[in-house]
């Protein structure tokens, strides 16, 4: 497979439930080694789109093709991508080390000291080396998310999906997480798809973005987030990036 081909291709996707269409005509591609941000207001379907990308739901129409995976909902076996969920989704009865070891010992023959060494290396990478024996309930929300990233990386995927990694974190923890995401993308060459509506995170980590709008039921803008902020003439996109309310122009406010 040529490395220049897109890592993810989405073509004319239509998603929804029953007769209700949430979004349609959704098409985009994610280049290998880049970070794509899926943006949009609350209820625009960002996290829902992510669930389709990782194969948790089957689309009504259209195609999602992940290089090496094909259609994610039809893929069987160990998905060659990792996912960080909004809550971290760690297993509460297992220590951080046990959480990280789970995919490793289930899907590979790595056991014993080598498994412990690999788990420790991943915990060190996300700055949680000293917390290996802590339960998820004993660490902060930001640490849970970092542990979730470490678990998502246990099987060395070249593609990571993040669902609102900075949501609910204090500014310092959020920046630390953004810097970690940058490290993964720029230093390790991992392709990253990130769902967020945190503007500082978007400008710090994203190379490219798509903007979803629930009124338009799909993508209303696509491109470099800095360029969209400065140049987009689409009212929703302009308001999103400049944190303006729709009525601000009429009232003369920001």
């Amino acid at each position, binding site marked *: 497979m040529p490395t220049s081909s897109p890592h993810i291709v989405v073509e004319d996707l239509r998603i929804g439930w029953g007769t209700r269409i949430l979004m349609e005509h959704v098409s985009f591609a994610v280049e290998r080694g880049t970070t794509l941000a899926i943006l949009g207001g609350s209820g625009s379907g960002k996290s829902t789109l992510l669930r389709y990308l990782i194969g948790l739901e089957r689309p009504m129409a259209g195609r999602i093709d992940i290089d090496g995976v094909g259609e994610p909902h039809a893929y069987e076996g160990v998905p060659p*991508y990792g996912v960080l969920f909004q809550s971290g989704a760690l297993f509460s009865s297992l220590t951080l080390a046990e959480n990280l070891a789970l995919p490793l010992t289930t899907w590979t023959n790595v056991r014993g000291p080598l498994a412990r060494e690999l788990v420790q290396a991943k915990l060190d990478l996300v700055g949680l080396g000293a917390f290996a024996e802590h339960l998820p309930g004993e660490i902060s929300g930001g640490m849970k998310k970092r542990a979730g990233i470490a678990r998502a990386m246990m099987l060395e995927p070249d593609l990571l999906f993040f669902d609102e990694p900075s949501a609910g974190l204090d500014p310092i923890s959020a920046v630390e997480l953004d810097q970690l995401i940058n490290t993964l993308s720029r230093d390790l060459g991992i392709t990253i798809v990130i769902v967020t509506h945190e503007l500082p995170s978007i400008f710090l980590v994203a190379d490219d973005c798509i903007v979803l709008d629930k009124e338009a039921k799909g993508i209303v803008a696509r491109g470099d987030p800095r360029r969209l902020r400065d140049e987009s003439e689409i009212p929703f996109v302009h308001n999103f990036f400049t944190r303006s309310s729709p009525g601000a122009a009429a009232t003369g406010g920001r």
Partner: protein
Amino acid sequence: MRVSEVIYALHSMGFDPVRWLVIPRCLALVITVPILTWIGDVLALGGGFLATTIASDLTPRAYILGTSAAISGADLFSGLLKTPFLALAVGLIACGQGLAARGGATAVGARTTSAVVLAIFSVIVISALFTLFLTLLGV
């Protein structure tokens, strides 16, 4: 439950939530509920013995003879026989409702209520069917 995204996480790691969550819980119930029922039977008989001999003039010997005459081995057997089936029904209903819970803490509460109501109903139905079946067998 899907509310905490743990089930999504299982999917995303290639794990089957039924194998990882439902089967262990149902298996645990099928094994432990008969044991708990047996313990409950023993405690009920022992408690009855203590209460009767302390609170009334009935002698211990009279209680034992009376209880032996009223309860046969078949009664204990029929009581224990249905417990794995009741445990399986309760486990499947609870896990099914848990897996279907979406939409936040409210959904968890609603699904918990549904699970309790359905489990009570299933226990009554399964017990009635066993009673009918055992009566037809003359047990």
